[in-house]
């Protein structure tokens, strides 16, 4: 989850915040993110950082405040007194394998899905994925939509997914919700996105190629 930073616009930079990052005690200016605090504090080996604007999903952290433990993205999390932050290792290799080119058409896609992601039908509604998502995606609902064969809806539910795969780590059934979401989006485009304006232009270009005598300028006129 993301901590709101109510003082971002007025943060008093002279104020100091004490926390630990990967076990290293760090004093940071108020209003900075955990990534900035790790750099300022010289915390070694913080390489799981990418875009610093919350869209690449790399800077996965576990955050402990008092007895409350949560996960999130370091570039979207602001420093807090007493917080303990651990940068999580990269997610392990995916366990579900498919290539879109292996699919013949869209008719058997539901069957294929059940072969590839058999766990998706076994969701026990523990909400672990929902709680872990730094983007507030209704992950559980998306998985249910995919399991019911409603891939367009499922893909839309996962629209803001940044592939941090924190939901994958939170799922006791090993459903890999992030990959379920991406599968849903990909098959929707692969089988159903057929835009007339693009198809028309591709056809024009194909015919152009067959008529080598005519230059493009002449055709434009």
């Amino acid at each position: 989850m993301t901590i709101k930073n109510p003082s971002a616009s007025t943060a008093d930079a002279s104020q100091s915040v004490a926390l630990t990052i990967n076990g290293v005690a760090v004093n940071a200016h108020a209003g900075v993110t955990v990534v900035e605090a790790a750099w300022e504090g010289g915390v070694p080996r913080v390489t799981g950082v990418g875009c610093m604007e919350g869209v690449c999903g790399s800077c996965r952290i576990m955050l402990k405040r008092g007895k409350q433990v949560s996960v999130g993205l370091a570039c979207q999390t602001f420093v807090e007194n007493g917080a303990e932050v651990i940068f999580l290792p990269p997610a392990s290799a995916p366990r579900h394998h498919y290539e879109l080119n292996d699919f013949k058409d869209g008719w058997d896609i539901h069957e294929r899905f059940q072969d590839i992601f058999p766990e998706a039908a076994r969701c026990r509604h523990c909400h672990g994925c929902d709680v872990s998502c730094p983007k507030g995606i209704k992950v559980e609902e998306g998985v249910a939509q995919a399991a019911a064969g409603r891939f367009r809806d499922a893909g839309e539910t996962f629209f803001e997914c940044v592939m941090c795969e924190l939901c994958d780590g939170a799922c006791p059934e090993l459903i890999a919700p992030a990959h379920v979401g991406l599968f849903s989006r990909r098959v929707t485009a692969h089988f159903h996105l057929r835009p007339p304006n693009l198809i028309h232009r591709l056809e024009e270009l194909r015919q152009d190629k067959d008529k080598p005598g005519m230059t493009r300028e002449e055709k434009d006129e």
Partner: protein
Amino acid sequence: MSNGIPLTEALARYRSDAELGPLPEPVDVEALLNTYHPDHLRDSVVKLTVGANAGDSCQRELAALLQAEAFIDEADLAGTPVTDVDVLVIGGGGAGCAAALMAAEKGARVLLATKLRLGDSNTVMAEGGIQAAIEPDDSVQRHIQDTLRGGHHAGDPALVSAMAEDGPEVLRWLIQQGMQFEQTTGGDLHTRRAGGMSTPRLVHCRDYTGLEMMRVLREAVIQHRSIEVWEQSPVVELLSNETGQKCVGAVLTSLLDDRLRIVRTRSVILATGGLGRLHLNGFPTSNHLGATGDGLVLAYRIGASLCELDSFQYHPTGLLHPSHLAGKLVTEGVRAAGALLVNALGERFIDELQPRDVVCAAILRECSEGRGIRVDEQRVGVWLDTPRLERAQPGLLEKQFPNLMTRTRIAGVDPRAQPLLIHPTLHYQNGGVVIDVNGATTVPGLYAVGEVSGGIHGRNRLMGNALLDIISFGRRAGAAATSNRDRGPKKVTLEHVNRLRRELTIAGMPMTQRSPQVLPDYAAGGAWDR
């Protein structure tokens, strides 16, 4: 910069329904650029002394890295484990993934090595969209003309033609990979017109076009049987044959265990992206953490020609505030949708859809002539008038720019109620490694695609041509790299490193600095032990 109107005063003065005067008369664009664009700052540019571009102009901080000492020499190669592959792709952004997928489709065994995580790239942050001439009143020819004109006619027409012609096919390929785009009610791909375009040509997926592209390509790469991925594995040097004339592999290190690894291959494809994290001329940057220009350094050391090394794109609308997002972009799509730029006096000062370099220079002019909004001694900017856009088209920001809304919401800023304070930010490397239409560099065995390559965008890139460039040339290089069917390298050497070292010594250059940079100094903290 101490001039400008203080933030509180400017905010009090600002009104989203204020009557805006007419635009001032268009100024002399050349004079505006020459006076205010950061490329023309005094002392920004030096002449290169050694290498393929000796005598050419080059941005000062980049020149220091191009003419620096390598990290390794022959002694480091002894006993280093060797991996053999058909094609090595260096870089895990959109260009690298497209190249890897195409090479794998052609039957090659591909290794994709990336410095950070697969997908950590500038691609993922591209919000605006991808250009392709698909509308009935548009044509490939118009796309070519707009691109050349936007680049001040410094681009290579052969490269621009190749890219523009690929446009529609690139969209089809992306859809096949599973990428979604915004559609009209009739099912057409929705297009927008943005800076420098003579007609709507920007295809997009709300304001997450790059994220949608990257997560789809990333998944396609991960799932592909013939592609192996090494993450956290920066390249520290390329490898050459006995004569130092051909690229035959690379030496990689690991940010996790610091161990060197040799990769031997027939073809290397550089897809390492740009260099915003070098913070040229002290500017903030929109770029991701790994954008340190490593590919330029590696290519130059092995003898490849570069071009337009003194031309960089400063995106007009980088956020000035809140500070943790400093330098991060507000997509040009917001201006394309109708948002205006307004100075502290509440006046428009430039046609917002001029090419980026012109708009950037105009903003810097406003700031330097006292018509900016001042946050503190260092930070001065102008308004991006989002509340006026919201008044004109209620709900548009929430519907079309969810990314912008999410990012600002976390910081407690609502662009619908308060204008955004913006300032130009270092965004894109216009030039780069010289390539042909197959992405081949002047060094046999070495290809370069995406931002690391040059010659396409001239001296200024148009919005939406970067995402097209990376897929178009990524696919071209991926296919071309597999056509090399020789038996592979007999011997791998660092002959090219020795050659540059000799040149540097003869020229009496200091060899105190080492390159590539790998990570910015402020982030290196023990991760990358030099």
